[in-house]
């Protein structure tokens, strides 16, 4: 009851923001309201997509009572790997990293699969062999250059590997999530720079024979000249995550771990496994965001993601997911992401200067949290 009331407030906030946007909006050359135009709405969907995808992964992590500060730099790492895989022929640091990620995940999933579906005591050796074969096959492909599929496998899986490492530090190493992922954030930035190479930090993407395949630009395409593909990816990711959270046992485990870890453990919830999965998924989505970045801005580089993790956390918090874990929803995060996106859009359309924009965004976060905690209602104040 209380939760639905809070969600109602957030919907109302979004509705009022949209109304304010329409009223304040400048007119275009023909007198149309720019804010409400279908094109502008499509722009907003594209503009929020990166933050949105990161925020979905972040929601899962925060629900377990954790936090993932590494998503920004992991995103940038993904963009760097994507750009180098697409543009270069022959083995590079990026193809090696991609091969390692692909091989490790193949081996890991093969072991888990064999133990679950064949016999619980299945030996790990064949799975490791399979992983090695996959890694070598991927690496051997370097001479021909990689297509969209290769990039869509390598970058997200590399991100997932970073996430898995964070998860291990948190779940097995018992490090505070803040510290573990802070360390990961810095390491991944360094790894991104190493993979970029010291001589060229920016890797531009050009299309054509011997360069990136034209198909890669589909990831930045607008369907019918309007609907942005990254926006659709965001919505699909959000829908999948919402299903996972509400319809599967994994989803129940995520909430249980965040609600009361000890109680969850005693009632048989696989706490460690659940944490490993959420951090891996967060990393996977960050890597995917990196691929979309590479497509959108036709370049990959290791440094643009700095600070993005904070935007994602802000959206999650505005969406009503508690930083203490246990309560929250993907739907809330969706609203949080849209609130942020619309606010930025309105401020931009109003030509508010960027310093003032930061102040307004800060106030939005404070306001949203006060609202969520129920401290911003008159009845309470009157008492």
């Amino acid at each position, binding site marked *: 009851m209380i939760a639905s*009331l809070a969600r109602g*407030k957030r919907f*109302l*906030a979004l509705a*009022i*923001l949209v109304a*304010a946007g329409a*009223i*304040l*909006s*400048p*007119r*275009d*050359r*023909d*007198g149309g309201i*720019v804010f409400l*135009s279908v*094109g*502008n709405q499509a*722009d907003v969907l*594209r*503009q929020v997509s*990166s933050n949105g995808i990161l925020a979905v992964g972040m929601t899962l992590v925060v629900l377990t009572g954790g936090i993932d500060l590494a998503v920004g730099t992991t995103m940038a790492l993904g963009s760097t790997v994507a750009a180098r895989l697409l543009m270069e022929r022959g083995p590079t640091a990026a193809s090696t990293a991609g091969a390692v990620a692909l091989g490790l995940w193949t081996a890991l999933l093969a072991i888990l699969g064999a133990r679950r579906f064949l016999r619980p005591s299945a030996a790990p050796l064949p799975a490791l062999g399979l992983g090695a074969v996959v890694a070598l096959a991927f690496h051997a492909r370097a001479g021909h250059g990689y297509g969209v599929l290769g990039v869509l496998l390598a970058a997200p899986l590399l991100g997932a590997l970073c996430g898995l490492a964070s998860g291990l530090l948190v779940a097995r190493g018992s490090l505070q999530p803040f510290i573990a992922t802070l360390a990961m954030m810095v390491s991944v930035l360094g790894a991104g720079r190493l993979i970029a190479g010291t*001589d060229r930090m*920016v890797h*531009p*993407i*050009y299309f054509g024979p011997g360069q990136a395949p034209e198909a890669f630009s589909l990831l*930045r395409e607008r369907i019918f000249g309007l609907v942005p593909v990254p926006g659709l990816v965001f919505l699909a990711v959000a829908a999948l995550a919402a299903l996972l959270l509400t319809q599967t046992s994994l989803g129940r485990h995520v909430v249980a771990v965040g609600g009361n870890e000890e109680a969850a453990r005693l009632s048989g919830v696989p706490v460690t496994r659940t944490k490993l999965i959420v951090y891996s998924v967060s990393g996977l989505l960050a890597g995917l965001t990196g691929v979309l*970045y590479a497509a*959108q*801005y*036709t*370049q990959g580089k290791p440094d*643009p993601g700095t600070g993005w993790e904070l935007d994602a956390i802000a959206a999650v918090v505005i969406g009503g997911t508690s930083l203490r874990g246990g309560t929250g929803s993907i739907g809330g995060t969706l609203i949080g992401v849209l609130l942020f996106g619309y606010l*930025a*859009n*309105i*401020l*931009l*359309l*109003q*030509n*508010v*200067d*960027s310093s*003032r924009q930061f*102040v*307004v965004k800060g*106030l*939005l976060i404070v*306001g*949203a949290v*006060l*609202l969520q905690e129920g401290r*911003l*209602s*008159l*009845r309470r104040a009157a008492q």
Partner: protein
Amino acid sequence: MKPALLSTLGFLLPLALLPACGRSSKRKPVVAFSQCTTTEPWRVLFNRELKREAAKHADLFDLVVADADDRTDRQVEQVENFIRQKVDVLLVSPKESPGLTPVVERAIDAGIPVLVLDRNVATDRITAFIGGDNREIGRAAGKFAVERLGGPGKAKGNVVEIWGGMASTPAQERHLGFRDFVAKEPGIGVLLDNQDGDWKKEKGYAIMETALKAFPTIDLVYAHNDPMAYGAYLAAKDAGREKEIAFVGIDAIPEEGGVWVKKGWLTATFVYATPGAEAIRQAARILSGESVPRTTPLATRAVTRQTVDAFLAEAGVKSD
């Protein structure tokens, strides 16, 4: 529900910071400018010159300036917004070429004339490019150095060159232009090779500190920007040798290089002109239906002890 409504209104209070301006339906033409960052002095000067020129055309069009905080994604958002607003002329000074090229092409597809300033994008469909020519500026500095050291064919002396970011194109071009003149003089020796000062004053100081220890005679310091030249001057001053050395910088931002020349700390600096004023003039011509040149290289000029007073007066900067 009532408290919820009120609290939501409270939560939206930040919006009160917005200037409430629903514009009338028949509006003046709009010239929109997306600047990649405004945290460095040259960009600040750039915006100032642009706005000052725009004030002269206030009856012709409205100017809208957006600052992308040095972020490619934000600059792309801004340009997308300008496309939606159907602005009449778009000015862009890109953070980087590959990231901005696609969205600039979209603006062109939407029929908006685009003027690209300072750094170019990778398409030849833009209306015009306006920017400084670093090679030319390097040549001007090289010519000045040769004159200062005795004139063509007779020049003699030891030169220290302090580089900007080693891999950056502006530094490369400022170096090559300088070499165009200095390399022809057998009497000029270049001490220290490829010293990277990364455009920073403190690094200029550190490089000069080392050079002063290593070489008993230094006649001229050429730094790829004024702050590094000033840093080198400070190092020489601390070593008590500033009187015997000429310090040559580049950029001539009035508050920096201009003032330093006026105070006698730098011997000369060369203007790396901002495209601000020229961009507005060209935007005005486009709006009046005239054509503009495809590329406009901005000329440099020397700021020396002889010309600095006029230079500062023109920029409206007091030296003391």
